[in-house]
């Protein structure tokens, strides 16, 4: 979690140099969701995500160097510069794909789960998305199908209360419980504090057991909050679209702080943390150096891979 935070902060810091030239949605503030869920996954489980995918990719074990290189549009990026931040993949890590159209990777994840079911595999598939995505019919249609077919699919909704600058008020009814909605569709559904990694892991554990026992799909709504602007590196609370009290109360519940409060009781935590940070920063520095020094892909190959052979 600390690692993801440090990586994304490094991205944020360097973004203004204008060398990472693609739309970038940071997960800062929401890391506990990805980390808590991933803690209960096996390497062979598959993961799909949305435009806000860095944390999901990294928590599943996605390659750091290839992520950073992708942001720089380099040939060594995870899609060779073709997809950018919104289209990540690391098949070795089981992170299949993230996509930029709201909700449109959800049905694809269900297709992956269908494949797993047909092969009789014990793997499962996770689909991460925001609460905004639950307004799209694609979410609903997929959830229905997943129940009909009893697919090994874990739907994870990170409810950060905003879709770009839009609050819930104009998008969902007051008192909407997305968890209750998923339940009415027929999915085994859970809910939790997305800023508390232990709680997320506990819910993930329940959901994953349910699915691995062959009981069909599960759904988890995680309440959380994004720290930075929707797209880009900055804080944007000067824009005033999020109430000050709301923001402050959520920032106080920063998922890293929550963990810190617990870990700091451990003897020598400070020292251990410092050495962790040192190691991570070294790794990050190397990733950036490698990315910056890597060559751009050759645009002469732009015609390659339009069609599979």
């Amino acid at each position, binding site marked *: 979690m600390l690692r993801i935070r440090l990586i994304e902060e490094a991205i944020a810091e360097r973004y203004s140099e204008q060398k990472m030239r693609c739309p970038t949605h940071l997960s800062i503030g929401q890391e506990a969701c990805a980390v808590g869920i991933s803690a209960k996954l096996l390497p062979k489980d*598959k993961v799909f995500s949305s435009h806000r995918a860095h944390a999901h990719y990294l928590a599943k074990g996605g390659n750091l160097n290839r992520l950073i290189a992708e942001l720089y549009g380099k040939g060594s990026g995870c*899609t*060779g510069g*073709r*997809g950018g931040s919104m*289209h990540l*993949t690391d*098949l070795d890590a089981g992170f*299949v*794909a993230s*996509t930029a*159209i709201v909700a*449109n*990777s*959800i*049905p*694809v*994840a*269900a*297709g*992956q*789960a*269908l*494949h*797993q079911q*047909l*092969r009789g595999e014990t793997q499962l598939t996770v689909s991460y998305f925001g609460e905004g995505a639950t307004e799209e*019919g*694609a979410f609903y*249609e*997929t959830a*229905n*199908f997943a129940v*009909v077919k009893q697919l090994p699919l874990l739907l994870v909704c990170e409810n950060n209360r905003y879709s770009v600058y839009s609050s819930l008020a104009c998008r969902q009814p007051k008192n909407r419980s997305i968890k209750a909605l998923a339940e009415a569709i027929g999915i085994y559904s859970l809910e939790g504090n997305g800023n508390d990694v232990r709680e997320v892991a506990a819910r993930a554990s329940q959901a994953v057991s349910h699915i691995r026992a062959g009981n069909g799909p599960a759904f988890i709504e995680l309440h959380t909050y994004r720290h930075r602007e929707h797209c880009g590196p900055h804080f944007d609370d000067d824009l005033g679209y999020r109430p000050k009290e709301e923001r402050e109360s959520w920032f106080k519940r920063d998922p890293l702080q929550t963990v810190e409060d617990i870990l700091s009781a451990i003897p020598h935590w400070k020292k251990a943390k410092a050495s962790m940070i040192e190691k991570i920063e070294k790794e990050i520095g190397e990733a950036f150096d490698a990315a910056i020094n890597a060559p751009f892909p050759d645009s002469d190959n732009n015609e*390659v*891979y*339009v*069609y*599979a*052979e």
Partner: protein
Amino acid sequence: MQNKTTTFAKQICAAQASAMRADKQMICMGLGIDDPKAIFGTTAGLSEDFGSKRVFDTPTAENAMTGVGIGAAQAGTRVLMTHQRVDFFLLAMDQLVNNAAKWHYMFNGQLKVPLTIRLIVGRGWGQGPTHAQNLQSWFAHVPGLKVVVPSKTDAVGQQLYQAIMDDNPTVFIEHRWLHNQHGDVSQIRRYTDRSEPVRVHATGEDLTLVANSYMVLEAIQAAEFLTKLGIRCDVIETTELNVSCWKPVFDAVNKTGRVLVCDSAHQHFSVGGELVASCAEQCFSALKAAPMRLGLPMHPEPTSFGLTSHFYNTASDIVRQVGVMLGRELPLPAKRDTPHDVPGQWFQGPF
């Protein structure tokens, strides 16, 4: 091994069965795929032969189900999906265009999407504004999609088999009036033994007819009639809607200097338009007359029998247009004795 006892629909069935045998993991899904009518008979017996795990009906949810197909396909399960009308599939454009068409490219070749989508174009017996659209030009405009538009019973089996076994997302557009077309059974061959993306049904020196889908049958009839008048036409079918496959068309037009495109969709911003444009670009110096096209008028198909009598082009319209291009008034083929809104006497409505 050939005989006379098959139909277009049966060949489609056979192709699916062959593919399911060749790829033991392949699945077929679609609304009504295993119901008593079996999508106009084109999926008859599949669920019995291959089981309900591999051949299954789905909720009415075109968009998500297309995404499911993409997801299973990229994971390694070959997928065939069937929709009873092109019109219904409009709900799934996001999945088709933003995912299926782009994933192989966007993920730099690491993923591929062996997904085939069968779409059926309605016509006649009051199909009307929302059951008779052929949006083939939409699909052809999208890089990463393959678009196959079959027309003849002798080839459709192999064409569908190839589309299925191809590792790319392919839109396979069947015209409803073709399903009962009789013809020779032809063996489904190996995948590598590909049939041509462009088929030459007739050759001539005077003019090149280029057609797709049901219009191929009309073009063939027109050419036969014209032959009797001493006018010899090429009849070329663009089964694959991909300009880079169309060299045989350009060769033919360079030979005749005259081209009439017979399209099965609305006239403008169409496949017909692309053919005229490509011929103008590639064969300019050989052209003896302005390239021309016949397409559907720029309004929806009305429902009433009384309103559709001239909506679709027939062999007669083709002959007339050829006359215009040759600067001669030509006699026209005799009027058909079937009502204009059904494919043949055997059809008793409704679709």
